[in-house]
């Protein structure tokens, strides 16, 4: 079987990037970013997850099918969260005394 074999150096640099991002997210939590705090933390987590998925899990070198599979998981997660929130976030709109 011929599969892509990544170099040691690549893995180590991904690891380093993940550690740096962890440090960044921890320090960001101690700064008052207001409403953006959560967005920043979430964005960093997403970047970290993407690095793991692309390199450690080798999706970078995998078929389109794998890409679609991974994407569909996150897509339907967004549907679950997003459509449920359409209810909770708009309940206040129709408040009448």
């Amino acid at each position, binding site marked *: 079987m011929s599969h892509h074999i990544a170099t040691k150096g690549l893995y180590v640099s991904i690891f380093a990037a993940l550690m740096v991002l962890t440090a960044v997210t921890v320090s960001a939590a101690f700064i008052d970013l207001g409403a953006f705090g959560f967005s920043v933390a979430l964005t960093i987590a997403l970047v970290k997850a993407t690095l793991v998925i692309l390199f450690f899990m080798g999706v970078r070198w995998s078929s389109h099918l794998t890409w679609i599979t991974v994407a569909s998981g996150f897509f339907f997660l967004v549907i679950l969260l997003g459509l449920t929130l359409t209810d909770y976030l708009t309940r*206040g709109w*129709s*408040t*009448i*005394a």
Partner: protein
Amino acid sequence: MLFFLVAVSAFFATVIAVGVVVFAVKYRRRSPTEVGARITGSLPLELLWSIIPLLITLVMFFWGATIYYHMRRPPTESIEIYATGKRWMWKFQHLNGVREINTVHVPLGQPVKFTMTSEDVIHSLYFPSMRTKMDVIPGRYTTEWFTPTKAGEYHIFCAEYCGTRHSGMIGTVYVMEPRDFQAWLASGGTGATSEGPLHVRGEKLFSDLACNTCHVPDGQGRGPSLVGVFGSPQTLADGRRVTADPGYIRESILIPQAKVVAGYGPLMPTFQGLVSEEQIVALVEYIKTLRPAAQAATRAGDSANTGIAAAAAPSK
């Protein structure tokens, strides 16, 4: 609306049924080795029977959504009744303090609004003859309303399964001529009980529970003044804005820290478990009466006999 739905359904069901039967007879197999014609599809037909149903369902959607929007917005001149579901009975409270169990009296031709909650599980207050229902959910208020158009006695059902005697959680709504209804209400209701107007009970509770030690009218207390609060927008400590509706007042009594008004600390203790749903309702009604002096003068007596006052308003 319903007629439109039935007509559309009947039409399509008939088309399909007739199509299937006619084809099955007309194109029946005439020799054992016969095969069907080579037809694989037709794009125009596919588009036709995708787009026409799409357009029809769009009509259904907009029509239905308009009705629903209307159903979810009680008219401001509605008569208010509080309803509480409890396994397995319906408790109704009129503003003048008349209480009923499993029956509710309403005047003909007047919109009636129910503000509802549950003491245990989810119920659903269903008036089949009024074509309306809404779930009654513990922990929050929901509302529903209708305008009765014909005097008489009609069913009340619980439509959300609530345990053993779910099917026994039924009652009767009596639609009365407005004049009869006023008389019934004023006499304290036959078979019903009255303990004085809700807001009066609320006022007593407000001091019994020592709410008034912090919520002083001039706003100098540890809690915000409640004068003029009801129905007006409030700015919260985190910048959000909410309208002080019954649901907000209820939540602020039970989970005081969920939505703290800007300028005040999260000091208020929870009254979870200390006040009943009926007491909360009384407090809500009392807070409704707290209006700035100028307004209070013009609306004097308005809420003291809200039921009667509203009933006298022109019906819609």
